[in-house]
């Protein structure tokens, strides 16, 4: 299937004084499953609709391979799109919905027959071909929308939160089949979601967005393990942020100090740095012990099955979230228990005051 890379250079979209997309540059590789992830209002859907041709590009350029598409009207861009609420034509049967784009392209009738049948089989709804959209469940409508988008063999496939209207169980199930299907078709896909778990599980690469800008681009593990700034660290998964003083005259042995002067950890930094900063640590990277680490007290214990989530308050007043796996412990620690907390120095990220990563 002919698929293309997508090159976005310095794309800008403004609504009056508000800049929805602010000089974004990205390259989506051929055949890649690429996700735009961010909170609502971050500009991810705006950017997707700029690629689709429903929003104009105010500045910058969007290329499919080496073709500039800024001024190509939406109906000539040859893009497949799956809409958030499916946008199935309510007056057409499943079959006619899927055949719609092929007919617009004046594909000959035998090929239409064959392609629609194949597409419906691929998404496993061939028996429903003669049904009307109002006789379908949400998941089935989702599959129709998907088949309709890829049956035209588009240059690029766009998906705008396609799973957000499904119930939790079906969502996880569809996630898997979506990824498998995309892999099989090898079609360049740009996917928009605000659900970080979905993004992590489905994507080859993710761009995390905020306020119309890109905060980080990387593989799911890069984004989770090495967030380049506190926003990404806070948005992807749960992070504890601890303000600290950094004493790194010798970057190989930097000391991180709490406001009350206690040393919380000694780590290796990339360069010398002296001054304020912030530690970011995941709840599962904090370790309880009876006598090693910072003095703290358990405020709340929440049993969640495979792990227990604790809210602890440090002597200095700050609260942290600590997760402890149930397979590692004998019992739940009750509230008010005094405890010591230490952190795994290999698994923390230290940011400077300017939110720059200092850890190697």
């Amino acid at each position, binding site marked *: 299937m002919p698929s293309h890379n997508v090159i976005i250079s310095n794309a800008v979209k403004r609504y009056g004084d508000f800049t929805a997309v602010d000089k974004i540059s990205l390259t989506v590789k051929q055949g890649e499953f690429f996700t735009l992830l961010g909170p609502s209002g971050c500009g991810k859907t705006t950017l997707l609709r700029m690629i689709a*041709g429903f929003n104009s590009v*105010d500045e910058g*350029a969007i290329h499919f391979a080496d073709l500039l598409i800024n001024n190509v009207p939406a*109906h000539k861009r040859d893009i497949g799109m799956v*809409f*958030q609420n499916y946008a199935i*034509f309510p007056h057409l049967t499943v079959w006619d919905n899927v055949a719609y784009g092929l007919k*617009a392209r004046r594909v000959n009738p035998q090929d239409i027959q064959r392609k629609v049948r194949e597409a419906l089989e691929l998404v496993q709804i061939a028996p429903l071909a003669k049904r009307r959209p109002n006789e379908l469940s949400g998941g089935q409508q989702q599959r129709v929308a998907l088949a309709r988008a890829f049956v035209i063999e588009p240059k690029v496939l766009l998906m705008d939160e396609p799973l957000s209207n499904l119930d939790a169980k079906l969502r996880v199930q569809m996630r898997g089949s979506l990824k498998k299907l995309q892999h099989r078709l090898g079609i360049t896909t740009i996917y928009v979601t605000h659900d970080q778990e979905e993004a992590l599980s489905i994507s080859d690469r993710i761009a995390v967005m905020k306020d119309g800008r890109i905060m980080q681009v990387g593989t799911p593990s890069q984004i989770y393990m090495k967030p380049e700034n506190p926003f990404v660290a806070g948005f992807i998964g749960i992070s504890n942020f601890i303000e600290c003083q950094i004493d790194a005259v010798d970057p190989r042995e930097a000391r991180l100090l709490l406001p009350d002067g206690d040393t919380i950890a000694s780590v290796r930094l990339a360069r010398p740095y002296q001054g304020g900063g912030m530690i970011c640590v995941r709840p599962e990277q904090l370790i309880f012990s009876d006598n090693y680490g910072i003095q703290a007290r358990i405020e709340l214990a929440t049993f969640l099955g495979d792990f227990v989530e604790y809210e602890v308050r440090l002597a200095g007043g700050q609260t942290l979230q600590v997760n402890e796996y149930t397979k590692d412990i004998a019992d739940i620690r009750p509230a008010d228990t005094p405890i010591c907390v230490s952190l795994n120095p290999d698994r923390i990220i230290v940011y400077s005051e300017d939110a720059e990563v200092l850890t190697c």
Partner: protein
Amino acid sequence: MLKGGIPRLTRPRFDFWFFVKISVVAVMALFLIYPFFTLITRSFFSTRVEGLTLFNYERFFSRTYYMNALKNTAYVTFLTTLTCALIGVPLAYLMTRYNVWGKRLFYILIIMALMSPPFIGAYSWILLFGRAGFITKLFAQFGVRLPTIYGKTGIILVFTFHLYPFVYLYTSGAMTSIDSSLEEAAENLGSSRLRRLFTVTLPVILPSILGGLVMVFMAVLADFGTPMLIGEGYTVLPVLVYNEYMSEMGGNANMASTLSVIIVACSLLVLFLQKILIYKRNYTMTAMRPPQVIQVHGFKRFLVTLPVALVALVGLLPQATVVVMSFIKTDFTGFIGGFSFDNYRAIASRLSRNITNTYWFSLVAIIFIVLLGMLISYIIVRKKGLVASAMDALVMFPYVIPGSVLGICLIVAFNRRPIVLTGTAAIMIISFVVRKLPYTVRSGSAFLYQTDPSIEEASINLGVSPMKTFFTVMARLMLPGILSGAILSWITCINELSSSIMLYAGRTSTIAVAIYTEVMRMSDGTAAALASVLTVTTVASLLFFLKISKGKVSII
């Protein structure tokens, strides 16, 4: 490597919708804005004074003749608004909160009262309670003299039973969209049912009631046929417009223009007052749990049904009367008794032109209304922006322009070069289109608001151009809404009197005009037969509307 050079800034798009907008704006400018501005200009001219002058306005505010008409208008509009509130609100309460017998039937009857033209109502009341009316004569045999139906009493009576459905529809709409938890909260806090009604329910739905009352007010202010037929010398402003225009025939309708401007100013003032009154008081809500219908039985159920039945049946009386009367023999003295088809034979031989005119003009108007209605409602809902909001305001403007005023507008705009249309079928059709378009635009846009915008984008995305998408997908999806609106437009077109009476020439006369002229020349039988033709068409169209709109399109 990258072809195409430096991307240009977005250029203005000369696409399909660009040309549609231009054309629609041009049509509106020619047939709405230009006539209205000509009207305003004309109101500042007089044959007696050179150049621009306030002469007409001075005359209006200094002569008792004109001031009386203004006073009369104010009297009947306010009083009718009050009587409609007194009937409409309790009726809505009974219908929404109790298991009234035959609810569906009464609902249809109430809507019928609204959709039938008021001048037929006026005529029927005269047939029953007029000087030679059946009921008047009946009572006279027992020596009882009934109070006169002519004058302001008759006007208010006719309007009340014609227009109370506005208040009913607005109020019942609001009453069913109150979440029941609101009333339960009041009850829980110790309010009795009656106290709850006056302290919670009614205040919350007040903006809707007000909306209905304003509709009543505007309709009374605009109507020409009723006061003309039953008013007998009780002159109100729309009648005055007609009289002035007739006396100025061959002149240039300056005073009629002035009066028209004053009427429009009055209706704008009322609209403005309403906006102020409901400002910050618009409690829109969607009922998660609509209020329960209270189930009463036996005599109690009879008691809640009785008022509904009385009002609905009295409202239906005019239609029933004209249909019955149309089959009764007449001569120059009036109805003489005995069943016959003579009246229908008479209209078939003498007035068939009016009948074909009515249906032809309305049909042609509806074709334009459907096409324009689809395009305009689409632009209003989907192409937000300056042009769209201007269009939204403009297309609704005819709501505040009474028919007779629109008639004068079109006359003063198109009775001399460059465009002369007076006396043609075209001007009748134009007035129908301009005046009745809002119904179709409203229901069309209501439907469009419920349609997911991405359906259209999906079609474009799959490679179908925006124009083709509009005609193959959007038009298809909007069709039920547009069609329902078009039927309402159709019903009001065939029943249109107040603008037609200004615009018709002998060859272009319609049924409504003929009813008026036949009544004036005391030809009661033919008038009844014509009115029956209209009534039957109206009822049939209305039933068709209820069938295809399936309750999704509001009648108001």
